[in-house]
């Protein structure tokens, strides 16, 4: 394993954020369908996602091509029709599986971080 340098954790967090981002998008669509601008606006609340939010559009396209989300056009009173995204059945399944895996991982890492140093093997 490479030597871990202070500051690499930031890069790791960026990678992890990138990895969970698709599932965060699916989660945002769980309760209601939304259009692109809405999703981007909500994404701003995710830790660290301050700039580069434009990458959500290629991500949405990918999710649609993978059959995880579906799009519909809806008329808007304030301008041109909007493309709304909603969770497809496959997307619901993917989100459920991710949630299970994430909670398992999160709990075990939390336990490890909390207990390390407290029960030394001597």
């Amino acid at each position, binding site marked *: 394993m490479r030597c871990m340098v202070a500051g690499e954790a930031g890069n790791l967090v960026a990678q992890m954020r*990138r*990895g969970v981002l*698709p599932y965060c998008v699916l989660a945002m669509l769980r309760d209601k369908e939304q259009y*692109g*601008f809405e999703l*981007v606006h909500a994404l*701003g609340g995710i830790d660290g996602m*301050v*700039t*580069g*939010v*434009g*990458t959500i*559009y*290629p*991500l*949405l*396209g*990918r*999710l649609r*091509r*993978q059959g*995880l989300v579906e799009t519909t056009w809806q008329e808007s009173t*304030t*301008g*041109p029709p*909007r*493309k709304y995204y909603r969770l497809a059945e496959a997307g619901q*399944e*993917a989100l459920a*599986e*991710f949630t*299970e*895996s994430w909670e398992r991982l999160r709990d075990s890492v939390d336990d490890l971080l909390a207990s390390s140093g407290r029960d030394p093997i001597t």
Partner: protein
Amino acid sequence: MSSGYDIAGERLVAEYLNRLAAAAASLPADRRAELVEELSVHIAEARAVQASVGAGTGPAVADVLERLGRPEDIVRAAAEDADPDAIMPVPVRCAPRRRALDTGTVVLLLIGGVLVGLGWVAGVVMLWTSPRWRTSDKLLGTLVWPGGLAAMLAIPRFGTGLPPPLVLSLLLAGVAGPILVATRLLRHAWRTPPGRPPARLAPES
């Protein structure tokens, strides 16, 4: 309606979208057009929101564009689509339909030669096109023995000149071999129960 035509803002937006279109030249035409359209709609929506609160001038537009990020980064995210599983592994579950398919493959390998004529050949095709087994398992399934249990039927016919003990041993091997391999294949196929973490996150062995 906005109070004045915001030339500076318009120019920023046009520059941004031009940069995006240029950076996206390597993408398929439909992908590129989709991206440019989505981003320009987004920018328009953001500016509409700003206009409604009374701010639609240059610096505010620059904020919107900065939040979107560099066009090159957006295009890179779109280009990574070439290998979608690298970014977004889609969980592969051992669904009941898949298990029936795996079981059917093994059954065909075992008795397909006897009952369904070329059923064994079909079993081999299904074996090799299945993602369920390692190559070593697939080789075992094909070579032990070609024809499955049907091969055993050939032994009495072609082994008339051989000493009975030898014929008996061949028969035993002819039966035991395919059955043992079939058991191994089934065990390996069913070792990933539904609900486990996605198989694709780990490198294929």
